[in-house]
């Protein structure tokens, strides 16, 4: 109390802007770690949002654990004293436990009168500290126990709880805390610590975990080989290879491949600290702030990981925040759907009631009409066309909105056939097939297709339908909704076209680089054809007496002409800037084609090609040309990557493997591998390891594979060289 009065006596600042003779308040934020740590960036954002313009905020970064030790701390003290000599600091904010410890130890030398607000400090770390009255803040609660409880619910098969920590002081503090807390779960799950391993070793271990394991990690700053990371980067590496789901205590890790955890956002932490700073600056004494105990936390998940690990959605605790979840059309139109379903139900009840009452037909008809009108009205207001179809009678009923959508007159008597005639010829068979399948399986069905309106415009329609049994199961009725999704489709298509255009440019550039060897492939059969034809021409008279030889010559010519035209056809496909054509593709067949195209190039580069192809590889759905481009690009890259090694070591392997739901194609070289610092960003544009590379080839490959619903990854091999692997979903 005495001290805070003294503070006021020494210097008075004004939190709401300075008038003449008054100065603005200065807030110094000391962060424990480096400026680019995601947690710091988020906390800073929250802090600045809360403080706004009411004070000048300065940020300093202690950059622990890259720098530490007594002499370093003394250097920082001297630096801060010198730097802020002319700017009296009114409040010091300590971000992170190490920063708080630093301030507690050094504040007598630094800013003895400024109150301290801490943030990003866990309650666990505060336990042993006796804080002076003017050191205040709200602790974070990394609720390990809640997270582990959830992990065990999500993964009932889990028998091993793997905990990963590192070697820095921060990492060790986490390790001892986890060792302490994990004991509670010992009789339910076997805790295993992977602490302070070199990253390579750690990643190998994580990659070989079975489905009886789950992983918890706060990430680490330092590994057993002395390498320094940010915890998020360390987790990202783990998540890329781990064969078990990973959970963490920090929000900033969401998106790096972890499933989630019970977490407090750093932005909320920053905002909370900012609010305390504001109150201190307004003159509230630190002791009377009446702060809550901890920053509230929630369960956060990365929805893609939830899907990946097959976690039952119903097991997520209430209030879970799901990141990266793309709402389905149903979810986007939830309200409208609810209205429509309610109306359908009301209609059914009404009809049933009327039937039971056996009132007059007239009454029934009127009620039906009324009901239909109501239903139609609500559907129209939801911008949806509503219809039902009875395949047995061929009768098709549709709301006015649906008729308008399909360009049908309001009075017109319509049938399914009439509707099909409006559907774009290219989509007609597919739609019909979908409908047949829905009728057979009685499942909900969904179709996207184009319709051709009488004035020639094309619209995209999305219809959803459900087959219902009527007349005691003897007949089927399909009830459904249609939405016009043209705008959405146009946007998608435009993006697709841009991508296709870029892909084409890159493809042509790549082919012209290969032109010498492509010409060679064409000249080979032409040479044989010309030689055979001229041989026949020169000795035609003698050959007429030997018809079998003549027939043989012609046979050779024909087979070489076929070879040439085959080659030209595949080249034309690659040169063409065609529309995306989705068809069923046999990857092994495609690999053999591409191998034929690059055979001469590989020969010139002294590269030997090994094809390691899985027999009975399932087909996938995709655009042949684009997939050929991806493969061609990866193969040419691999061949170029081996330029610096001895010819007998230049070995290129193409491998295919079939998984349950996907196939994997790997292109493996024996070159020098990708420099570690480029491995993460190799699929970004203009990143190239080759001096002459434009750097868009891999980016295009990446986007092609993504557009096919797959993923492309690059890893360095344990011995030498790199592996580029893409996985594509097997068609249903």
């Amino acid at each position: 109390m005495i001290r805070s009065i003294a503070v006021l006596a020494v210097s008075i600042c004004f939190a709401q802007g300075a008038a003449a003779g008054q100065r603005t308040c200065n807030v110094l934020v000391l962060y424990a770690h480096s400026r680019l740590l995601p947690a710091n960036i988020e906390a800073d954002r929250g802090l600045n949002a809360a403080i706004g313009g009411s004070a000048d905020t300065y940020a300093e970064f202690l950059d622990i654990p890259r720098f530490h030790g007594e002499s370093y701390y003394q250097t920082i003290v001297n630096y801060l004293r010198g730097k802020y000599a002319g700017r009296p600091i009114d409040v010091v904010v300590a971000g992170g436990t190490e920063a708080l410890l630093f301030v507690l130890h050094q504040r007598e030398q630094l800013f003895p009168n400024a109150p301290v607000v801490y943030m990003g400090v866990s309650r666990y770390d505060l336990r042993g500290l006796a804080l002076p009255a003017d050191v205040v803040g709200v602790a974070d609660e990394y609720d390990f126990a809640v997270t582990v409880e959830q992990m065990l619910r999500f993964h009932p098969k889990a028998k091993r709880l793997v905990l990963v920590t590192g070697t820095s002081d921060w990492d060790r503090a986490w390790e001892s805390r986890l060792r302490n807390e994990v004991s509670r779960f010992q009789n339910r799950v076997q805790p295993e610590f992977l602490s302070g391993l070199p990253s390579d070793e750690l990643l190998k271990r994580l990659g070989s975990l079975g489905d009886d394991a789950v992983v918890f990690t706060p990430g680490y700053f330092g590994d057993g080989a002395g390498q320094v990371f940010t915890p998020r980067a360390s987790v990202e590496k783990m998540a890329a290879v781990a064969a078990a789901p990973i959970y963490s205590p920090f929000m900033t890790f969401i998106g790096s491949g972890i499933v989630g955890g019970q977490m407090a956002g750093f932005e909320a932490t920053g905002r909370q600290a900012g609010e305390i700073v504001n109150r201190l600056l307004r003159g509230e004494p630190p002791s009377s702030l009446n702060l809550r105990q901890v920053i509230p936390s929630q369960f956060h998940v990365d929805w893609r990981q939830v899907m990946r690990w097959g976690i039952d959605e119903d097991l997520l605790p209430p209030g879970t925040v799901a990141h990266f979840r793309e709402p389905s059309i149903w979810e986007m139109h939830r309200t409208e759907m609810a209205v429509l379903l309610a109306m359908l139900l009301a209609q059914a009840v009404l009809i049933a009631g009327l039937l039971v009452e056996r009132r007059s037909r007239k009454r029934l008809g009127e009620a039906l009409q009324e009901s239909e009108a109501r239903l139609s009205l609500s559907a129209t207001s939801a911008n949806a066309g509503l219809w039902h179809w009875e395949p047995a009678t061929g009768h098709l009923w549709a709301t006015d909105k649906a008729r308008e959508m399909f360009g049908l007159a309001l009075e017109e008597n319509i049938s399914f056939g009439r509707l099909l005639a409006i559907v774009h010829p290219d989509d007609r068979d597919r739609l019909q097939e979908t409908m047949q399948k829905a009728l057979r399986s009685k499942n909900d069905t969904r179709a996207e297709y184009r319709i051709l309106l009488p004035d020639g415009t094309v619209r995209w329609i999305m219809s959803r339908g459900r087959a219902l049994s009527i007349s005691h199961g003897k007949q089927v009725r399909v009830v459904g909704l249609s939405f016009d999704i043209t705008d959405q489709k146009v946007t998608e298509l435009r993006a697709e076209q841009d991508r296709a255009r870029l892909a084409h440019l890159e493809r042509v550039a790549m082919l012209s680089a290969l032109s010498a060897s492509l010409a060679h492939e064409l000249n080979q059969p032409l040479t044989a054809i010309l030689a055979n034809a001229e041989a026949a021409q020169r000795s035609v008279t003698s050959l007429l007496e030997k018809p079998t030889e003549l027939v043989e010559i012609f046979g050779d010519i024909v087979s070489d002409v076929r070879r040439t035209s085959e080659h030209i056809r595949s080249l034309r496909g690659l040169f063409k800037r065609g529309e995306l054509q989705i068809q069923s593709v046999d990857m092994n067949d495609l690999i053999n084609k591409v191998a034929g195209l690059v055979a001469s190039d590989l020969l010139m580069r002294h590269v030997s090609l090994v094809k390691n192809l899985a027999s009975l590889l399932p087909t996938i759905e995709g655009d042949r040309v684009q997939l050929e481009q991806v493969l061609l690009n990866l193969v040419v890259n691999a061949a170029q990557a081996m330029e610096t090694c001895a010819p007998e070591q230049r070995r290129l392997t193409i491998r295919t493997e079939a998984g349950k739901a996907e196939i994997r194609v790997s292109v493996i070289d024996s070159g020098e591998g990708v420099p570690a610092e480029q491995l993460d960003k190799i699929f970004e544009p203009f990143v190239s390891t080759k001096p002459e590379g434009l750097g868009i080839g891999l980016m295009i490959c990446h986007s092609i594979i993504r557009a096919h619903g797959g993923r492309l990854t690059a890893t360095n091999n344990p011995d030498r060289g790199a592996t580029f692997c893409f996985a594509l979903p097997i068609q249903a």
Partner: protein
Amino acid sequence: MIAIEQPTVYLVDDDPAIRKGLSRLLRTANWRVDAFASCEEFMLGHDPNAPGCLLLDVMLPGLNGLELQRRLADDGNPLPIIFLTGQGDIPMSVRAIKAGAADFLTKPVGADTLLRAVSDAIERDRETRRSRANVATIEQRLARLTPREREVLTHVVSGKPNKTIAAELGTVEKTVKVHRAHVMAKMRVGSFAELVRLAAQAGIGSLGPSDSVDE
């Protein structure tokens, strides 16, 4: 050894269709053809004394065409080489020609061009082998000369009169005449002009300037 066998066109190409087609075409011109799928196969089955020419694809798996050319040159094998390439690669053809290639043809090659190149190369091979055989004969005869006769021959072919030779060798003109007659007989020539031609083929020319200055 003088080769008297019929010349052979050796063909090396990794493409079986090309081996078959070109062999067929070459046989219509009555050449004997021996085809190989790789340079290694050719090296194994080839007799360096056999006359002919080599029709060689540049781009081959394993040892490539240019490398085979270098090996043959290192072995002193005179077999003329006609290169066949799928691409008009100028730097490559320059290298091949500089290294003594007889010709450099681009695929696909017409019959006229190919057959002319082959007969030229085989003619060249015949020439080389014949002149090699000549030199061998001349050298055999030269070997039978005494050191003194060899000395006289060197002076004679440089066009010096007997008198000058005698003075330079520190002897009399008559002795020089006797040596000269022996040389003519051992070299089996009837005229001075013929002697000069043989000496030139064996690389014995006029006296170097240093010899004259010494006098």
